[in-house]
């Protein structure tokens, strides 16, 4: 079973969401997602722009397939992980830490309640593993 940190939130598109101390969220893809994608070779990072929940905002290309990155909440992208430009494999190696993809503001804190807990996400991927 892939590692799923308890203190993060999750969405069905296999992204994790960490609520930061300043109220913004940091987003990446889960261990389960990186493992099914295989070696990641390019990342198209989101523009520093505003997005609504579910908007496509970037792409992760692995040797096997291209996978969209979606905004899990409505807000504005305020930071992206530039290190991924030269080292996209950070997502494979450390998806919850050095492999983070972007940070965004949260326009509506209520949306956080709609996200999956670690337990719910674990159950959702159980059948796939």
């Amino acid at each position, binding site marked *: 079973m892939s590692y799923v940190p308890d203190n993060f939130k999750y969405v069905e598109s296999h992204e994790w969401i960490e609520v930061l101390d300043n109220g913004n969220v940091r987003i990446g893809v889960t261990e389960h997602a990186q493992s099914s994608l*295989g*070696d990641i*070779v*390019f990342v198209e990072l989101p523009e520093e722009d505003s997005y609504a929940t579910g908007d496509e905002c970037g792409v992760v*290309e692995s*040797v*096997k397939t*291209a996978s969209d990155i979606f905004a899990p909440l409505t807000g504005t992208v305020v930071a992206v992980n530039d290190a991924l430009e030269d080292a996209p494999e950070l997502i494979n190696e450390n998806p919850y830490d050095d492999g983070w993809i972007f940070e965004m503001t949260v326009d509506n804190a209520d949306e956080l309640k709609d996200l999956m807990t670690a337990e719910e996400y674990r159950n959702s991927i159980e059948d796939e593993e």
Partner: protein
Amino acid sequence: MKKTYLHQAHIDAGAKMVDFGGWDMPINYGSQIEEHHAVRQDKGMFDVSHMTIVDLKGPESELFLLKILANDARKLTDGKALYSTMLNEKGGIIDDLITYKRGDNNYRIVVNAGTREKDLAWFEKQIKTFDASITERPKVAMLAVQGPNAITACLTVLPTDIATTLSTLKKFCAIDDEGYFIGRTGYTGEDGVEILVPEDKVIDLWNKLIEAGVKPCGLGARDTLRLEAGMHLYGQDMNEEITPLECGLGWTVRKEDFNFIGADALTALRTQGITKKMTGVVLTERRILRHNQELVDENGLTGIITSGSFSPSAEVAIGMAIVDKNMGKNVKVKIRKKELAVKCIKLPFVRNGKVLIEK
């Protein structure tokens, strides 16, 4: 799902297994890219026991081969291998295969796993009028050991007399001795061998090769290696709807006598004019080319990517594409909402460890 004799060995080596045409096969053992580099720079091995092996015997074996293969089986001498396409009446490609001549009226044919049923049915149908017979050999396992240091490693694990013969074996030739059938062939663009052994011997061979430092490689790396080498994959770069003349396989079609199945259709096509060709494609933007992406040039001429991936050796996206014969210089690929410029280049992209793409 079907399993090869090495199934447990793959799991023990940490393989991620996938359904590959009904076979449970390793896609990688961790990192596909590391496995790719192992083969380009050193040595790696692939279990390809899912491939179909058939033996052909009987006084009219050569006549049968001359009918079903586009290439010329008369070029074969004992211990030599021949790559060919096998065509239907319309000139479409039923499969691509390798035929080894083992002796007088004695051949071994290796065909793709995904086309097993239709190939065997085609053989059975066509062989009826010949004094020859085919027998499938499902109990034979097959390992491809590939890379600049692959043969050296094999020499250390094979029985002495076989190793001695292997040390001077020429490319595209085979050793056929005491249950070992070893061809200096492959599907990676590197030197190496394909070893066919009775399946009860294969686990021992696998373990000895691991001890000799040969890296287990999955079918993922096999695909990027063959793509860099510009080698066709059946079902993607060729199929029953396209002739070898239109997808870069004209060299597998013999020039002299024209008595093989599909020859009439090829002659008609030549008269009518060939309108498509195979090309290599390189994308410099940081995206990946994929099977079925569309190409278009400045005059609206089109093409389609038949195989695409990331090239671990060149670190760019590469692809093989079937395009209009008159395709221009300014070609763009449609990747979802974007149109990105690509460069059409001659295949292969990489051969014997060397990247051939001009920057």
